[in-house]
């Protein structure tokens, strides 16, 4: 008899993983089904990484409520999960007198949503706070912060796994059957059974919902492109710098964000697109980003980018409707099937309050018993680069593999790569190593360390060449050997 789970979460983005972690506090058998080869295969890895304060969201919306709650607990959350967090604060810049009115609107909305610490500052204060920035006034939000969206998602998932949640990757859900007291969920020639299903499939949440007859939802994918600028320029700003939101207000517009790892993030654009998997970047997008960012920070170089990428917002309102909807979290028709539809920004900020809300809904259906040995702590992995010289010396003495540097840009050691490889989720792809250990992410984008990592995979970890993947099946790196091994041995 196939195992029956209490709960199956579909989608291992930041929302699905936060839900999984909240569920792992209880004596439940929980499984997460993810079509990608790793957590964070969707919007959760390609966003601004901003812990929003809550002044951008409509008064009284779920977005506003969960955002403000999320902001309040975020620092604690990151300390439990060993995730970088930095309260940098944010300036929304008015570049004309007309913009100033907008700042007042945001300020008012913020007050009503319960956002603390907001103030409107004048040109002189802007210059004092951010000498490189051009503006006539700004809304200052001291509580806005930054984090690493992918490290948070990974940490949620790892902590959930530590506490017993099972993760199934490369498992695209293709059909769901309602049985008497459980669901049969089909994926990749296999199936999983669970009493209750949480649909956290991001851009595909409407498709998953329609599998059991909720046909009223529709997701409108809206792509946001980014450009990442070399950390050599990180001194240009100390806070997040935003334009006042564009007229249509369905997005926040291109902004300039410091990242917890150093580089500056520029973006995102906003384009409603047909194909919800199309995370391509475009020349017009890249050019627009740089142009808009330089309007507000003229000293920003246009030539020193290290990479470009894009993420897709799962909007539940179309472009024609203005693109601005609230989160839909409901189980109207089939109480054991919970849909999360349109979890766009501030989904990262809101992830834990959202998850707690979902667990509350579940508690009305299934009796939840707290687990005695739940451990909320997921220690941050050791990073040689962040240690003092003395600490490095001590660490290498204890574990020599910390002395073998694999990545020259970010100073990542072999031990850190091996630790990333031995992650509890069992992810073994290059991209998995990249997001966990920060190899291949520096300014040379793997030009140096990829060769070393491949050699570690082959020689230390005995991975055959055709088992080395960038991410999903099909993303192979090598097509064969140049020479057969035995030929090489001929004297």
């Amino acid at each position, binding site marked *: 008899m196939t195992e029956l789970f209490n709960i199956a979460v579909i989608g291992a983005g930041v929302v699905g993983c936060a839900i999984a972690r909240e569920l792992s506090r209880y004596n439940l058998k929980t499984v997460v089904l993810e079509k990608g080869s790793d957590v964070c295969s969707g919007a959760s890895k390609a966003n601004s990484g901003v812990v929003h304060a809550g002044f951008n969201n409509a008064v009284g919306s779920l977005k506003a409520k969960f955002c403000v709650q999320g902001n309040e607990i975020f620092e604690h959350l990151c300390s439990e999960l060993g995730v970088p967090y930095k309260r940098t604060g944010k300036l929304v810049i008015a570049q004309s007198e007309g913009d100033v009115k907008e700042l007042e609107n945001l300020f008012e909305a913020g007050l009503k949503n319960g956002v603390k610490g907001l103030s409107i500052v004048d040109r002189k204060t802007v210059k004092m706070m951010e000498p490189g920035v051009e503006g006539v006034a700004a809304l200052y939000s001291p509580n806005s912060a930054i984090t690493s969206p992918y490290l948070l998602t990974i940490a949620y998932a790892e902590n959930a796994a530590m506490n017993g949640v099972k993760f199934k990757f490369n498992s695209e859900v293709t059909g769901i059957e309602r049985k008497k007291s459980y669901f049969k969920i089909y994926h990749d020639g296999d199936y999983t059974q669970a009493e209750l299903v949480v649909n956290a499939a991001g851009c595909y949440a409407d498709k998953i919902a329609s599998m059991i007859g909720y046909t009223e939802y529709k997701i409108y994918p809206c792509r946001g492109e980014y450009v990442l600028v070399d950390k050599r320029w990180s001194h240009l700003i100390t806070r997040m710098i935003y334009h006042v939101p564009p007229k249509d207000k369905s997005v926040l517009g291109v902004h300039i964000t410091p990242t917890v790892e150093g580089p500056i993030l520029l973006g995102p654009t906003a384009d409603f697109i047909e194909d919800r998997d199309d995370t391509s970047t475009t020349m017009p997008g890249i050019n627009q980003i740089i142009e808009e960012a330089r309007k507000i920070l003229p000293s920003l170089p246009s030539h020193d980018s290290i990479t470009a990428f894009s993420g897709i917002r799962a909007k539940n309102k179309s472009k024609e409707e203005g693109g601005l909807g609230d989160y839909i979290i409901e189980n109207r028709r089939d109480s054991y099937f919970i849909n999360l539809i349109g979890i766009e920004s501030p989904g990262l900020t809101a992830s834990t309050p959202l998850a707690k809300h979902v667990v509350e809904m579940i508690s009305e259906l299934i009796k939840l018993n707290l687990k005695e040995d739940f451990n909320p702590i997921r220690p941050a992995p050791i990073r040689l680069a962040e240690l003092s010289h*003395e600490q490095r010396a001590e660490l290498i003495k204890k574990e020599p593999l910390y*002395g073998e540097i694999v990545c020259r840009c970010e100073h990542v050691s072999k031990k850190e790569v091996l630790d990333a490889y031995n992650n509890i989720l069992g992810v073994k792809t290059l991209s998995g190593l990249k997001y966990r250990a920060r190899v291949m992410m520096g300014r*040379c*984008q793997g*030009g140096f360390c990829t*060769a070393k990592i491949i050699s570690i995979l082959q020689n230390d970890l005995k991975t055959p060449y055709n088992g080395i993947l960038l*991410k999903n099946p099909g993303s192979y790196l090598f097509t*064969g050997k*140049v020479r057969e091994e035995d030929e090489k041995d001929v004297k």
Partner: protein
Amino acid sequence: MLNEIEVDVAVIGGGPAGLAAAISAKENGAEKVLLIERGSRLGGILNQCIHDGFGLVLFNKSLTGPEYAEIFIEKLLKLKIDYMLNSMVLELTPSKKLYVANRNGYHLVKAKAVVLAMGCRERTRGAIKIAGSRPSGVYTAGLAQNFINLQNLMIGRTAVILGSGDVGLIMARRLTLEGVKIQAVVEIMPFPYGLRRNVVQCLEDYNIPLHLSHTVTEILGRSRVEAVKIAKVDENLKPIPGTEKIIQCDTVLLSVGLIPENELSRQAGVEIDPKTQGPVVNSMLQTSIKGIFACGNVLHVNDLVDYVTVEAQKAGMWAAKYALNELPEPDRKEIEITLGENVRTVVPQKIVPGLDTSLFFRVYKPGKNKTLNIIVDGKNIIQKKCPSITPSEMLKADLKGEYTLNAEKIHVEVCE
């Protein structure tokens, strides 16, 4: 506890530049010379260059990269020069302290003089902003060379190469010989960037199409590369709408330029020339920080290893003299060289008055039958005929010390 080591001359990097500098430092009297290399063997980038063409100037022979390196490695061993492998310098301070990590521990090397010989790294897709999806199968040329020549791994079946510099050209031939179909080499400039001999021997001999004034505008494919979009560019190197073409391939090789690897130099506060992206040095190859010298690709990207060797020998010699307190204190300020028509870079950027100096130039535009003029205090003292120039080939000229002893101004230009 940090493991402390004191040396006269520390050399960072064990490629041809580092090897020659270390040998020369020792031969010029420095007692304790330490060479530090992060790779698992000496030789640097030469280890993966198994084609020939190295050593033509110095040895009058066409050697492979490893053969060339071997000559210097043997000499280093014979001179019993200390070296550390698998050892990465993580930090360099202005007072010439080096923090080095390896499996034996974390070391603090205190050096009287330092030679920077870290080589260079490749420009990436992100740096040149190629739009499109992000599948596997996009490699920088050097990385691909490493996989094929050092790790015995084949990287694809059909490829498009972006960039016609020597690295791109050599990889086009190498891949063809291994059975990969090269669909095209795409070059944004209106002329091939590599040496003429490489265009002939690596492309024309194998009928590989070269698209000049073209660039890759988009990469297509979800899991693995499936195709690239290329387009013609205008005089400003901007893609011309409507000229796009799709070329099928499973591999994209980027050979779009090398950047001197000066993270450590910057950290130490060494002044960097924005054009060469290497340190600003004087005739002694001394950087803006006294006692720190630079040579090889970390100073400026070289096309011939032989010149790297000669340059590094000088850097090693001056570093030794500095460590021994024998560096002559010139009684006059250094003379800055000003760049005129069609001169993009010059190394060294500053002349120590009275010292014989070899100057290396790069030009902006290719041309035929030009003259390189070196003008000292308004007098044209060197006129060098250049039958053919291109931005990819360095021009060299020797400036005798007697001309600069009392000079105020030095100007260079390449004219009709």
